[in-house]
């Protein structure tokens, strides 16, 4: 009798295990679905594509302006404050990402013009600043009524 009960208990246990395993697997899968989807997406916003690159997301001014992500030398900046900081004589790589509408990246004094960059398209600009000073960065395509206020600074240090 006792043996029988134990056998039944064992049988119940075996029957029960797969169900609880399913339950656990579902829960783990759910957490993976919720958390591990969110994280990489968030990660992509705040880190540049390559370590030595300055990444610029191009947006209309009212939509937050251009957002810069730069390695430690360059200063990270948002909206219309701050500037890109480069070292004189060192190769600079700027990774431009088309945001909401067509923009372009222009530094007239250094003769740099990316040409129009459509939303979702990217372009890499490489140049070596050979004089120090402060230069203005403009958007070369009228991108919004606030376009004329889209002015950023490029600082080239000695």
């Amino acid at each position, binding site marked *: 009798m006792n043996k029988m009960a134990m056998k039944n208990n064992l049988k119940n246990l075996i029957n029960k295990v797969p*169900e*609880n395993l*399913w*339950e656990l*697997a*579902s*829960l783990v*899968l*759910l957490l993976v*679905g*919720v958390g591990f*989807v*969110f994280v*990489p*997406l*968030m*990660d*992509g*916003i705040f880190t540049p594509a390559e370590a030595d690159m300055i990444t610029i*997301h191009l*947006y*209309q001014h*009212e*939509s*937050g302006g251009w957002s810069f992500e730069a390695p430690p030398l360059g200063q990270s900046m948002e909206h219309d404050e701050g500037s890109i900081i480069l070292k004189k004589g060192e190769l600079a790589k700027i990774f431009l*990402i*088309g*945001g*909401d*509408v*067509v923009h372009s990246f222009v530094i007239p004094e250094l003769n740099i013009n990316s040409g*129009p960059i*459509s*939303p*979702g*398209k*990217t372009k890499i600009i490489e140049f070596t600043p050979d004089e120090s000073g402060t230069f203005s960065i403009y958007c070369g*395509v*009228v*991108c*919004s*009524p606030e*376009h004329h206020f889209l002015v950023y600074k490029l600082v080239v240090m000695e």
Partner: protein
Amino acid sequence: MKKNKKVVLATLPLAIIIILFVFTQFSVISIFPSVSAQDSEVRVIDVRAFQFGWEPEIIHIDTGEQVIFRIEGDKVVAHGFYIDGKDFYVYIPPLETVDVGPMVFDTPGKLKIRCSETCGPLHPFMVADIIIEPNFPYYTFLLSALAVGAVTVVYVQRGPKNKMLGVSLDKEVDLLRVRGIGPILKKALQWRGIHFALIWPNVVIFMIVLASGFFGNPTGNLNFSVGVVWILWLTAVEYMILFAGRTWCTLCPLPAFGEWIARRRIYGVHKLRKPFSLDKKFPKSLNNMWGSALGFLGISLVVPWLVTRPWVSGLLFLALIILGVVFTLVYTRRYFCRVICPANSYIGYHANASFYAVRSVDKSTCDKHIEKECMRGGPKGYACPWVTPYPGGLTESTWCGQCYECVKSCPLDNMSVKYRMIGKDIANMAVLAKRRFGMAWVGFIRFNLGIFYELVFFGSFWALKDWGNMGIIFGVNLFNFGVLSPTTSAFQMWLVWAVIVAGVSLVAYPAVFFVFTSLAKMAAGAKNLSTKNDVFVPFSYALAPYGLFIWLAFTLNLILVNWAYPLSRFSDPMGWGWESSPIIPVEGLKASWNPLAPELLPYILMPIVLIGLALAINSTYNIAVKLFGDQRMAFRSTAVMAILHTGMALFFAWIIIG
């Protein structure tokens, strides 16, 4: 012989459509040979591009005329110039004027100018019309709508018994007992993990929607939350309704979180009967369609923001999932779905016009079976979470969310999934629903908004879009939602929009419908019935198939033109210009915007609407037969209602090609 005649009558509408379309395509070419380039002068058409439209809105061109489009660029942003069926995408820089042409249009009809360069949130809807005169296809469309209306009326005059367009409504296929896939399908539906397995991918997609909605690119079509939800999902749901009923509700992640918490289980059935929730009783007066219907209408009032601004979409989904969890923790069962979810109104309403339904195999078995696990829950499945009165006796799909708990819990294996002709249950259900005004108004709202959206989003009247949009040209995410602050005058124009949307679908069309039902009642000579209490709501059920087919047409238009946006969003959900996303590491999904057969769109959409028209007239007849109990009375009232239904098809023809 008699049977043959009926088959001919049933296929006649389709034949007429095909003949008329073929006639248009060939005859016009032979009657009006295109004028050769030498003997016609080149006409210059000035077009101005702006956010979000073209001026002039409608351009009339003669067949064979040589034209050049002189496009004045926007003062603000760059646009793109594209004409349906022409193989060019011209970049229009701001503050510049670009000449496109010369070109010749050979086929009469209506083509659209579309913007091909993302120029802001409402970019996908920046449209103008080119009407190539003489617009013969338009007249053919009108004639074919009249012909389909007339032929269907003639068809019902012959008194088809319990049939829909020649197909018997008694025939049904039990999908779980079909040879081949039947047993596999049954095993899948009885497997407890199916629910979670189907919902999990959508949980992932939902998280991407939230992430991209709040933090992604502020411009809608570049953002997963808008590109995938309001283009791909919207279309998928409409086609799911037709072919698979409320299958979206099977897949929906919104109520699932709350349900899992309340059940204390994701996979299995908890042994304790008491759920982890307050388990309150839901107030009976609120337990109807009005909540969902008004929710859908409320969303429609801000739809130009919702479907173009990721932040607004994100907020809606966040609110819905919070409400979903809260409602389930208070009321346990799916009252969130039944009363709050705006999609419930239309998915439930149109599911009655689906080929697909969950039904009992044999109702008498259910009636004799006292335990009724489908209502009380059993060891293998929960009690019907949707609180349908009695799954075994289901004759209506409105409240059946297709969670398949009854298929799992039934110990007699008597619940199944059936495939049958559209509108099998409509007549029965309509006759019983004499005062379910909530359902009638879902029908009115959906039917009118389907037509209205086709006019607004793919029509050339940019002012309508601008009113709904409150004149705001910026995209919005979490970082700049303050931009959504309209000026007073823009807000006043939005009020006009709101009055149009709500007025047409809540008041004007129902009023017209009421007049027609009372005329139909008079024509039938049913003096003992009252229009308001007996005829109005039942007749409105004819809009279940008609409204569904209008939406099938509208969403097909949406996806055929804009398929590239949702597809690209799978590799670049946030709209940051990624080539492949960390979640779906597939490269090469990115496609540039490239509408599929846009010049043929009217020819694709109109037959869909005409099938809807024929279904609506035949449904009206089936309802009337049940209502009046007399074929002659039913036919006379159907003939009156057919005038209204055909009129709406004519209006739709005007929108897409007139």
